[in-house]
C-alpha cells in the first residue's frame, strides 16, 4: 500500500483509507488534479457514502412511478399525459454562512434539477429551521434567508407556494434551509441525464465558470461547524456560491426550448461538484467515456487552474449532450436567449480494462488534442465511492428522556398557552410570489398547497396537484422511527384537507455528524420510519437528499427528516373549503380521538410541552387501518367539493402542531367567527399532537355523520360555530379578535423586538 503524500488528500476532504482506495482504482498514485476530483465526488454530499446502505430499505416503486431515486428528480405519471417531477434538497451550510446567497442558490439548484428532466418548474416550497428569535443572529438569518428565496425565486419566475417555519435552539448554530421544487412536462418529453453516442458533443450552457463555490460539497457541506466561531467562520465564505436569477431564467427558457425542439440527447445540471460531477455522472450513466477540454470552459477570471475549473460550483450552468449535426441549431437558440453555449466535451468510446470490460474514462485535457491532465474511470467518481456502515448506537440517555413525560403536567393557563402557540407565517410568504402561472388554488399558510396542473406546453387537464412539506423534530428526537412515520401520516392528512390523494414521497434527511453513533442510529431508525409509513399507505419514495454534519460546536441538531408529499386531485374546478366555517355550523372531530396506548392524549414532543422546556416523553402509536380510512374519507369529501359537487362540509383543518386548541384557534382567526366547543374529557386533549384527526365544520351534521359511519370512520361532535369568542369547555375562552391579533403579530413582533 502506498502512503499518502503529505496530507493533500485530507485538505481535500478524503481520509487516508479513501486515498488508498483511489490508488487501488487507478492502479497508481493519483496526480493532484485527479485527487481533487475524487475529493469532491467522494464527499458525503455527492456520494451518500454514510447513508446509501440504509436508503436501500426504502420502497421506491409503483405503477405510476416513471423515475425513482438516483436521477436529478423523481417523476410520476399524474394522468392526462402529464408527468410531474419533484425534488427536495438542502442548502443548510451555505445559508448558515451567507443567508441571502445560500438560500438563493438553493432555489437555483433545485430548479435546475427539475428542468433537467424536461419539466418546467411550476412551484417551490421552503421548509426553514432557525434558533429562537431572541438571538439577534437568528433574526439576521431569517431576514437573509427569506430575502434570498424571495429575491431569487420571484425574479426567476417560479412561484413559492408554501413551506414550514420552525424555531428551536438546536438550529441556532446550524440553521436548515430545505427547498422542494415541482415541475410538469408532457409525459413523452421525459429526458434523463445520460451521455450516449460516441462523437456527440457536451455543450456547457449558461454562466462562465469562476472561483466561487470551490469545495462547496466537501469543505462546506460535508463537515460540521466545529470551532467556537461556528458558521461565523469567514474562511468558509468563499465556498458559498453567488446566484444570478436572470441568468437562470434565460437558462430555463433556453433549455426547455432545446428540449422542445428535440435537440438534446441528454442534459445534466451543474450543481455540487460542478463540471466533474456533470461529466462523470452523464458518462457513467451512458457507459461511455468523455474528454473534457478545460481550456474551452469560459472563465470568469484569468489564471484559473484545471482543478478550479473542474470543481467550481459557479451557478446557472447546464451540460447538454447533443449530436454534432444539431450544434448550429443549439447555438442559435442559445443566442436568442442570450445564453452562452460552448462545446467543452466529446463523448468517446470506453476503453477495455484487464478483464475485458468496457470502462468509460473521464479525461481532462489541455485542449481536445492536448495533454491529458487527468484520466479516471467515470463510474469510479460517480458511483463507486466507498460505502460506510458507520457504527450505530441508541443513545444511552434516551431512556431517561422518554421517562420524563410531560403528559401529566398540569395545564394551568390554557388561554395564555394557546396564544403563545399561534404564529401566522404571512410575514414570510407575502414576500414570495405565490401566484405566477395562474395555478395557485390554495397558496401558502394552509394545510397543503393546491395547484391546477397546467402550464405552457402541457396537455389540457382539470387535474390538480397538492404539495405539503412536513417535519417534526420534536417527535423524532424522542423516537426517530415512529416520529418519522407519524410525520408522514400528518403530511398525508394535510393533502387530504385539500382533497388530494397522496401519490409519492420525497425526503430531505437533515442530521448531525454521522461519525457520532447516536446520529447514525437516528438516521437508520428514521429511514425505517419512512419505510414503515410508506408501506402502510402504499406510497413510493421517489427521491431524496441526505444532509449530514448539521452540528455546531459539537452539538448535533435534533433529527430532522423533512418529507415532501405529492398528491393529485382528479378533477379540480372549485376551491376546497379551507378553514372558513360559517355561523351556526356544527363542528366535529373526524378520526380517532384517543391515541393508542396508556396515554390517550400524549403531550410528549408537543409544541405545548417543548415551549415549556419539557422535551421528554413518549409518542403514541396510531392505529393504521382506521387512520387510512380517515385519510381516504376526508380526501374524498374534499375532492367531491373540488370537483364541483354540493356539500355540507364548510371547513376542514387537520390537528397538528399545537393540537386541537391551536387548530380551532387558527380557524377562528381566519374566519373571524368564534365557536363554542364542549368540555373535553381531558384537558391534555387541548394540546396533544398525533396525526389522523380533523376538525370539520358542517351545515348538516346528520348527513356527515351518516357518511362517516358508512365509511367506518370515527366522528364526534365538538360544538357549534358562531359568536365572537372561542370557548373550549371552561378551560379556554378568548375573543376571536385577540386570537387573530396575537397570531398576526407574533412573528413580526419577534423579528422586530431588538433589531
Amino acid at each position, binding site marked *: 500500500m502506498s502512503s499518502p503524500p503529505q496530507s493533500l488528500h485530507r485538505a481535500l476532504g478524503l481520509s487516508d483509507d479513501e486515498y488508498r482506495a483511489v490508488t487501488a482504482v487507478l492502479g497508481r498514485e493519483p496526480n493532484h488534479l485527479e485527487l481533487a476530483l475524487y475529493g469532491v465526488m467522494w464527499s458525503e454530499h455527492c456520494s451518500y457514502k454514510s447513508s446509501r446502505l440504509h436508503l436501500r430499505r426504502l420502497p421506491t416503486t409503483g405503477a405510476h412511478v416513471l423515475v425513482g431515486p438516483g436521477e436529478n428528480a423523481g417523476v410520476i405519471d399524474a394522468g392526462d399525459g402529464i408527468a410531474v417531477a419533484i425534488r427536495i434538497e438542502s442548502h443548510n451550510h451555505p445559508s448558515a454562512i451567507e443567508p441571502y446567497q445560500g438560500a438563493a442558490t438553493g432555489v437555483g439548484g433545485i430548479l435546475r434539477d427539475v428542468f433537467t428532466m424536461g419539466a418546467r418548474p411550476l412551484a417551490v416550497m421552503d421548509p426553514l429551521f432557525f434558533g429562537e428569535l431572541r438571538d439577534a443572529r437568528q433574526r439576521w438569518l431569517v431576514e437573509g434567508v427569506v430575502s434570498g428565496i*424571495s*429575491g431569487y425565486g*420571484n*425574479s*426567476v*419566475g417560479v412561484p413559492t407556494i408554501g413551506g414550514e417555519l420552525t424555531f428551536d435552539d438546536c438550529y441556532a448554530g446550524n440553521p436548515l434551509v430545505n427547498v422542494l421544487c415541482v415541475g410538469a412536462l408532457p409525459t413523452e418529453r421525459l429526458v434523463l441525464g445520460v451521455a450516449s453516442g460516441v462523437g456527440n458533443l457536451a455543450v456547457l450552457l449558461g454562466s462562465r465558470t469562476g472561483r466561487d463555490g470551490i469545495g462547496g460539497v466537501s469543505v462546506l457541506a460535508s463537515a460540521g461547524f466545529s470551532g467556537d466561531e461556528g458558521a461565523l467562520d469567514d474562511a468558509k465564505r468563499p465556498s458559498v456560491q453567488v446566484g*444570478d*436569477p*436572470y441568468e437562470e*431564467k*434565460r437558462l430555463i427558457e433556453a433549455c426547455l426550448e432545446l428540449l422542445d425542439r428535440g435537440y438534446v440527447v441528454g442534459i445534466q445540471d451543474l450543481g455540487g461538484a460542478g463540471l466533474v460531477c456533470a461529466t462523470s455522472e452523464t458518462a457513467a450513466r451512458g457507459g461511455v467515456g468523455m474528454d473534457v477540454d478545460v481550456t474551452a470552459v469560459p472563465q470568469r477570471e484569468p489564471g484559473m487552474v484545471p482543478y478550479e475549473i473542474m470543481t467550481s460550483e459557479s451557478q446557472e450552468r447546464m451540460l447538454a449532450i447533443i449530436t454534432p449535426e444539431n450544434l448550429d441549431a443549439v447555438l442559435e437558440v442559445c443566442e*436568442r*436567449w*442570450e445564453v452562452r453555449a460552448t462545446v467543452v466535451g466529446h463523448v468517446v468510446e470506453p476503453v477495455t480494462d484487464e478483464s475485458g470490460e468496457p470502462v468509460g474514462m473521464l479525461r481532462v485535457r489541455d485542449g481536445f488534442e492536448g495533454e491529458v491532465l487527468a484520466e479516471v474511470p467515470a463510474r469510479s467518481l460517480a458511483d463507486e465511492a466507498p460505502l460506510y456502515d458507520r457504527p450505530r448506537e441508541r443513545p444511552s440517555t434516551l431512556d431517561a428522556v422518554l421517562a420524563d413525560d410531560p403528559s401529566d403536567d398540569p395545564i394551568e393557563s390554557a388561554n395564555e398557552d394557546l396564544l403563545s402557540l399561534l404564529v401566522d407565517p*404571512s410575514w414570510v*410568504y*407575502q*414576500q*414570495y*410570489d*405565490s*401566484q*405566477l*402561472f*395562474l*395555478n*395557485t*388554488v390554495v397558496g401558502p399558510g394552509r394545510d397543503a398547497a393546491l395547484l*391546477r396542473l397546467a*402550464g*405552457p406546453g402541457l396537455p389540457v387537464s382539470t387535474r390538480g396537484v397538492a404539495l405539503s412539506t412536513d417535519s417534526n423534530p420534536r417527535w423524532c428526537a424522542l423516537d426517530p422511527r415512529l416520529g418519522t412515520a407519524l410525520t408522514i401520516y400528518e403530511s398525508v392528512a394535510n393533502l387530504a384537507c385539500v382533497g388530494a390523494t397522496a401519490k409519492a414521497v420525497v425526503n430531505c434527511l437533515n442530521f448531525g455528524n454521522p461519525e457520532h453513533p447516536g446520529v447514525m442510529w437516528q438516521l437508520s431508525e428514521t429511514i425505517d420510519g419512512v419505510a414503515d409509513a410508506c408501506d402502510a399507505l402504499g406510497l413510493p419514495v421517489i427521491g431524496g437528499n441526505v444532509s449530514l454534519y448539521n452540528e455546531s460546536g459539537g452539538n448535533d441538531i435534533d433529527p430532522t427528516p423533512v418529507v415532501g408529499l405529492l398528491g393529485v386531485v382528479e378533477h*379540480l*374546478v*372549485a*376551491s376546497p373549503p379551507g378553514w372558513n366555517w360559517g355561523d351556526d355550523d356544527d363542528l366535529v372531530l373526524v378520526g380517532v380521538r384517543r391515541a393508542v396506548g396508556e396515554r390517550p392524549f400524549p403531550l410528549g414532543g408537543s409544541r405545548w410541552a417543548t415551549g415549556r422546556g419539557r422535551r421528554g416523553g413518549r409518542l403514541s402509536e396510531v392505529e393504521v387501518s382506521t387512520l387510512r380510512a380517515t385519510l381516504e374519507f376526508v380526501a374524498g369529501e374534499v375532492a367531491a367539493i373540488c370537483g364541483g359537487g354540493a356539500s355540507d362540509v364548510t371547513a376542514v383543518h387537520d390537528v397538528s402542531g399545537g393540537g386541537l386548541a391551536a387548530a380551532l384557534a387558527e380557524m377562528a382567526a381566519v374566519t373571524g367567527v368564534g365557536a363554542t366547543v364542549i368540555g373535553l374529557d381531558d384537558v391534555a386533549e387541548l394540546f396533544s399532537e398525533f396525526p389522523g384527526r380533523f376538525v370539520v365544520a358542517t351545515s348538516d351534521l346528520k348527513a356527515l355523520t351518516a357518511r362517516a359511519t358508512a365509511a367506518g370512520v370515527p366522528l364526534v361532535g365538538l360544538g357549534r360555530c358562531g359568536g365572537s369568542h372561542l370557548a373550549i369547555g371552561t378551560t379556554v375562552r378568548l375573543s376571536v379578535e385577540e386570537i387573530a391579533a396575537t397570531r398576526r403579530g407574533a412573528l413580526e413582533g419577534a423579528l422586530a423586538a431588538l433589531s
Partner: protein
Amino acid sequence: MTRVAVVVFPGSNCEYDALAGVTSLGAQAELVWHTTKDLAGFDGVILPGGFAHGDYLRPGALARFSPIMDAVARFADEGGAVLGICNGFQVLTEAGLLPGALQKNAGLKFLCRPTALEVTSTDSVLTSRASLGQELVIPINHFSGAYVCDDETFERLQARGQVILRYRENPNGSRGDIAGLANERGNVVGLMPHPERAMSTLLGSADGRVLLESFVGVRERVTS
C-alpha cells in the same frame, strides 16, 4: 376579434399569464420578442410583469432601450392601447410613456397579496367598462411599487382624471394611494396590481376581468 401583442423581454415572467388572461376573453394574442420593431396589425400591446433584463440597474431601466420600445412609443402615439402590468408599468414610466416613477415599497419588502382597489376614473382603455367607485380585489406582486412624482405632475394627474385605480389601504407607500394611471388620452395605462391573476374565483378573485374586458374591447385608436 382584437389582436393583442404581449411583449416578452428576457426576464419577463408573466407573459403566459397575460396571454391567458386576454385570450380567455376572446382576444387573439401572441407573444412578441423584445427585438421586434414593428407592431403593425395589433390593436393592443401588453407589457407584462416580471423582471425585464433582470431589473438590473433598476426596474425598467434597461428594458426601455429594447428595440421594441420605439415601436411601442409610435403605437401609443398613434392612439393604440398600451397596458403595462407591474414590471410593464415600471417600463412605461422609464420610457416616459407615463409620468412619474416607481420606487421600492415603503416597507422595503417584496409584497404578494390581494389588495382592494377603487376605480377612480373610467376614462381609460383599462377602466372603460368598470364603474366609478367600484371596488376590485386584485393581487399585487412587487418590490418596487410605490408611485412617486413631483407635485406639479401629481396635481395634473388628479385634475385630469388620469388616476384610474387607487388602493383602499395603501400597501407600499404609493403617492396618493395610486395603484394605476393613464396618460392624458387614456390609451396608455399602467398599474401595479395584476388583473390577469384575478380572472377566476377558483384562484381567489374574478375582479380583474372587467379591466381586461375593457382593454380587449378597444377596437379603435384613441384620438382625443
